[in-house]
């Protein structure tokens, strides 16, 4: 199963890269011109995200460096303990939606300290693999089209993150202990 999926991942982009121009040529599209025409908007699209990302990443960076995030972790600990999350992985759970780099750093440190094949190591690996940097994604995607009112996206994103966390803990207990 894993082999097939892994091959699929390796082949997906090369196949797309070959098939799209091939079918386009077959349908009499001017492939080079069309590619350039589409690619024209690339710079603008990427640059447009700068103010939004700066706003969000500055706030996250200040929040983290000041030590406020550590306080948040402690405040959340009793709640997360209730659903069976071991204390060692708490910082990762709280950090994950805010900062991808920091969460990966924590996960790496836990894997190194406890060993990749320990229960904690497997759990944090599952948590890292199954979750996304929700705030970063929202900021980037909404920012690229100039949207500043996110409505209920933050709530549904965090609800999903929390579910993923609980599901990771549950399934790791079932499979690994």
């Amino acid at each position, binding site marked *: 199963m*894993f082999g097939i*999926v*892994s091959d699929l*991942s390796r082949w*997906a982009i090369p196949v797309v890269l070959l098939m*799209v*121009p091939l*079918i*386009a040529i*077959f349908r009499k*599209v001017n492939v080079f011109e*069309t590619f350039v025409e*589409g*690619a024209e*908007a*690339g710079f603008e*699209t990427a640059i447009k995200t700068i103010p939004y990302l*700066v*706003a969000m*990443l*500055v706030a996250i960076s*200040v929040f*983290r*460096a*000041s*030590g*406020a995030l550590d306080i948040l972790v402690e405040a959340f600990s009793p709640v997360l303990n209730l659903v069976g999350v071991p204390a060692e992985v708490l910082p990762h759970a709280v950090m994950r939606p805010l900062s991808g780099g920091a969460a*990966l750093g924590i*996960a790496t440190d836990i*894997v190194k300290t406890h*060993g*990749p094949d320990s229960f904690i190591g497997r759990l944090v690996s*599952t948590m890292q*693999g*199954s979750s996304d940097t929700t705030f970063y*994604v929202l900021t*980037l*995607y*909404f920012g*690229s089209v*100039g*949207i*500043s*009112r*996110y*409505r*209920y*996206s*933050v709530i*549904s*994103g965090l*609800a*999903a*993150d929390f579910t*993923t966390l*609980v599901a*990771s803990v549950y*399934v790791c207990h079932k*499979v*690994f202990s």
Partner: protein
Amino acid sequence: MVNYIWFGMIAIGVLVAAFNGHIEVVTKAALDGAQFAVQTSIDLVAIITFWLGIMKLAEEAGLVRSLAGLVQPLTNFLFPSVPREHPAMGAIIMNLSANILGLGNAATPMGLIAMQELQKLNPDPKTASDAMCTFLALNTSCITLIPTTIIGIRLIYGSANPTEIVGTTIFATAAGMTVAVIADRILRSIYMQRR
């Protein structure tokens, strides 16, 4: 809501730093954050430009429309406000497929293209539309078949079986995605009544 979160992070951050007696970290952290943000956006230029070109080709060749048509029953349910065979659908499908396969580099440009297409259908360009909220709920909770980065780290630190977390990851992401879809539906109807 994002206003309060943003203000809260900055205000609490500054206060905590002052209280802990290391107020100087705030200035450095702010600059570091800004620098990282600009770097990220600049890094995106190359990959977005490339995929926008490929997507334009796919669109002209009629591939985006046929892809959108292929998964129509599912997308009709998830995105009732987006017309059938709209180019947004093709981009959404490609973004989610790339996410599922763990191809982060391809997923982001596809996602930004999808947002541009959805923005064309949005009556209020400053406010997120229903379809955008649904798309982002799916995107941030998307099922992952291969978490490539963490498998690499497990390998580095000598795991006997680095890929043994693939199954548990699929389970956890499937649960998260289910809740994302349900939460999105419930919140959408709550917010609709408020308007």
